[in-house]
Each structure stands twice: as C-alpha cells, then as structure tokens.
C-alpha cells in the first residue's frame, strides 16, 4: 500500500526535472543527430518546406573545410601544450605545498584564488599585460606604442620586446599568450584535487621509506606518483575535456573576433566553429561539428581511462 503510494509520488517529485531534461537535453541529442544527417540543413530552409537529402555529407563538408581544420589544429595544439604543462606544474606545487608546515593554508588559499575569477574578465587583464599599444590621443590614427609590462619583465632578462597579441603578431606569439593564460587558469582546480589526494596518502608509506633511507626522488616516483595516480588521471581527463572545449579564454584575450586585429578567426577553436555555423544559420554543419567534437572527447577519454587503468594503482 505504502509502496504503491510512493511510486506516483516519486514520479511527481521527478517530473519537473524530467520534463526539462526531455526538452533541453534529450530532444537536443536526437535533434542534433537528425540535423547532422540532413544535408545542408537549416531551420530557415525547413520552415520554407525544403526537402533535405539524407546522408553524411555534412560531416564530409566539415572535415574538408579549411576553417574547421584550422579550428581543429588550434584546439589540438592548445590541448597538447596546456594539459601536460598545467598538470606537471600543479603536481610540483601540490607536492611542495604538502611538504611545508607554516603558511601552508595561506599559500593554498593564494593558489586557489584564480579559480573564482571570471575567465573573460581576467583574460582582459592578461590581454592588457601583453598589449603593446596604448590609446590613441588626438587623431584617430596616431598610436602610442608602449613596451607593455610583460615585455618590460622579459627585457630584464635581455629578451627583445615581442609583439604578442596586436596587429601583425605572429601565430606562435599568440599561442604562447594563450598557453600562459590557460595554464594560469587551470592550476587552481588541479592543485586543489592533487593536494587533497596527497593529504590522504597514508603516512606509513613515507615512514617505511624513511626507515629504509630511500632517496627523495625514489620516494616521489615509487610512492607519491603511484598512490596519487587516480587523482592524476582524473585531473588529466577533465583537462582534456576542458581543453577540447576551449573558447572563452580566447574571447577574453582576443575578443570575439578570435584573433589579433587584422587576422580575425586565426585562433578560432572547435567550439567557436560550432557557434559561428549556428550564427550563420548552418545548423546542419554546426551539428556535424558538435558530434565530431563529442566523438573526439569520447575517444580521448576512453584512451585516458584505458591508459590510466593500466598505470593506476587503486
């Protein structure tokens, strides 16, 4: 009696969530697959009564599209550069934090600070730091060139000023700025997770190593890293997923033109491509690109899980 009463109650409690999920999660999954398989699909054409061919032509088009390939290249490059760099740096910082006593909590707080910031707003700060052109005063063409704070800092070490993000800057200068910003932005979460993992490692392992007077480097590679491996795997997987969806950090630094002045779109990413196609009412192409993105994330996650299963000690 009570049980059957519960049954309809459970569905009643779940109903708001289920209704919203059906509209905004389940239907999009179905519809994205549908749109991706209708050649050159757009909602405007559909309301006009246009009959679309069925097939995988959208995918072929996207994969042969130079713009998309450029986005894919940028996304992959940023992933390959930022994921190892931020993971290794976060691991170093977490291990050092775990090895000190005074000021540990204070420093932990400092390292977590970038997490609560707004990626676009702080991207604008990085953009200002790398910027080499001040405001125009008087005429609309007269530009005042400053060195920019980053150029001043590297100048101390004898490096010549570099045009980082302004018109005429090189692709690799742009990528460097993005890598610096993305790593800065990614550190807090990784340090938080890795430090949490380190603090939960049983002290006995270290005490045993001490008795055997094991060298520090061996303790690190034979105790710390293996016992921390589930956390490292977690951090790497989420970093790859985030990396493939990179978008707002580029908007933060370069604005929604996704590139330096005079070369818009140069730094566009896969997510950026999806939004551009959507804005151009090419929903078929956008859907195909979104499914390709999903496939890449899925495959990379599976590879990561497979590798970490072999290398992880639970």
């Amino acid at each position, binding site marked *: 009696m009570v049980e059957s009463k519960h049954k309809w109650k459970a569905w009643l*409690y779940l109903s708001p969530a289920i209704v919203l999920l059906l509209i905004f999660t389940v239907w999009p999954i179905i519809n994205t697959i549908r749109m991706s398989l209708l050649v050159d699909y757009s909602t405007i054409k559909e309301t006009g009564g246009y009959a679309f061919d069925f097939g995988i032509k959208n995918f072929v088009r996207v994969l042969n599209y130079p713009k998309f390939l450029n986005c894919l290249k940028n996304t992959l490059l940023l992933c390959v550069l930022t994921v190892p760099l931020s993971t290794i740096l976060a691991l170093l910082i977490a291990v050092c934090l775990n*090895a000190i006593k005074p000021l540990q909590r204070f420093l932990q707080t400092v390292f977590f600070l*970038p997490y609560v910031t707004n990626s676009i707003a702080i991207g604008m*700060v990085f953009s200002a730091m790398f910027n080499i052109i*001040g*405001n125009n005063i008087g005429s609309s063409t007269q530009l005042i060139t400053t060195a920019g704070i980053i150029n001043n800092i590297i100048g101390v070490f004898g490096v010549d000023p570099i045009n980082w993000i302004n018109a005429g800057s090189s692709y690799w200068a742009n990528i460097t700025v993005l890598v610096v910003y993305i790593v800065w932005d990614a550190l807090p979460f990784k340090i938080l997770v890795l430090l949490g993992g380190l603090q939960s490692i049983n002290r006995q392992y270290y005490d045993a190593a001490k008795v055997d007077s094991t060298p520090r480097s061996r303790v690190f590679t034979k105790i710390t890293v293996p016992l921390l491996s589930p956390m490292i795997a977690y951090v790497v997987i989420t970093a790859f997923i985030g990396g493939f969806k990179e978008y707002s950090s580029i908007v933060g630094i370069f604005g929604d033109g996704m590139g330096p002045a005079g070369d818009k779109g140069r730094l566009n990413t896969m997510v950026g491509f999806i939004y551009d196609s959507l804005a151009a009412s090419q929903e078929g192409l*956008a859907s195909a690109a979104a499914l390709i993105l999903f496939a890449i994330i899925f495959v990379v996650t599976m590879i990561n899980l497979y590798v970490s299963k072999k290398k992880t000690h639970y």
Partner: protein
Amino acid sequence: MTEHVSMQEKNLQQVSAHQRIVKVAVQVLLYAFLFLMALTVLFPFYWMLISSVKTLAEYQLQIPTFFPRKIVFFNYVEAFQTANLGRLFLNTLYVGVVSTLLSLVITVLSAFAFARLEFKGKNALFAALLATMMIPGELFTITNYITVDTFGWMETFTALIVPFLVSVFYIYLLRQNFMQIPNELYLAAKVDGTSDLKYLWKVMIPLALPTLISITILKMMGAWNSYIWPRLVANKPEMRLITNGLRNAFTDANTQQTNIPVQMAAVAIVSFPLFLVFIFLRKYIMKGVSRSGIKG
C-alpha cells in the same frame, strides 16, 4: 675502545648535522619556489588593481610604473557609466537568484526521489542521467537555441534561466548526501505520520545544508561568469549579463582602441564580489569544485 665509540658518535653527529643542513636547504628551496609561483599567480590581480587607479597618461608610459605615481578613482566612475554596470549587475542578480531558487527546488525533489523512494526503473533512469554528463554542452546549445526561438523566448530572461535549471551533477551531489542520512529517520517519520515534504524540509534539508550552499554558490557564480549562451539569446543592451556586457564595452567601435585603465576598473568591479564570496565561502566552493571539474 672508548676512542672508537666516540669516533662513531662524532660521525653520527656529523651525519645528523649534514642531514639538518640538507633539510633546511630543501625547505628554503620549497618556500622559494612556492613564493615565486604565488607571486606569478597574484601578479595579474595586482596589475588589474594598479592599472585601474592610474591616469591614462601614466598607463601609457614607455616604461610602466609598478606603483602608480598618482592614485585616481575616476576610472571606476567612468567604467560604471560606460558599461552601464548598474544595469548589468541587476540583470545578473535577477537571473542568478531566480535560477538558483528554482534549480534548488528541482534538485532537492529529484535527489530525494532518487535517494529515498523506491520505484521501477530508478537505477536505469539514474544511470541514464549520469550518462548525459559526458556530452559536451555545445551539442545541446544548437537545438536549445532553436527551441528557445520557437518558444518565443529570444531576448528574454526566461531563455537565460529555464534551459539550465536541471543540473544532473547537482542532483548526483545531493543524492549522495541524502543517502548518508540513515533511512531509520525516514521510517520513524513515516510511522509518526510525517509527510514526505515535511520530513524533507525538517530533516533532510538541514542535514544537507552544506551541499545546498555549495550548489547555490556554484550556480550564482555560473550566472556571473556565463558568456556564450547569454550572448546568443539575450544580446540586447538592456538584457545583457555582466560578462557579456563587459567584454566589448570599452573598445571604441571606430578605432578598435581600448581605454585600458577604465577597462581594468570594470574588471576589478566585476571581480570584487567573486573575491568576497571566495573569502567568506571558500570551503563550500572547494567542496563542490573538487568533485565536479567544471568551472563556474
């Protein structure tokens, strides 16, 4: 014999002295590295603050000053007016509060059903929900954009609130929390004739309060930091949310030049509430974050 022993002692003392020196050196290196990294992490915030109180002329010096010669605050006034920050604040607050409240109600009810009630297909449904977490949000955005347009919600706050009310991750987080509360409490309440909702309100919610606070903070921060979706569906100046309004407000449409001190003042204004949240509610954020891997 005694000589031999004292030699050994001396050696031991030397070894321990040596070890102490190494230990101190390692500690010094650790602190040096950590302070260097901490300075790097903090530098952009410092730069934002000092740039926001510089005059434009001082900001444009060939060699930037590390501490402003003259501290001025008119950049803040200008930032507030140029970007219409007051309006952006109110919009963001409205969207944030409404979506958080509705989201909490939906999350609590769903988590309760999954944690306490028995019904057919419960586990399958829960697994299906978790599976959707793997799909990148962009895949939903395309259709949701069309759906919002079909519903006539373009350029309304409804479009900013409704599509994101259900978060599978929050349901999952709260369900785990609810499961830790002993079932005996629920059965006892049933025997006493307490209704589900009263039990939820009087027992479950107070016990799960830390998780609910985490969800509230993350949800509010989400509204504060969201950019892509608001720009797509509500881009009219009077509907904009703070991040969207901020990005393009300070670039001159004709010359593409930016008044950076004013821009930095605006960034500081936007960052300030986040810092307050961080200082007072850090532990809740860390708790939610370490399990999500999702920013904002």
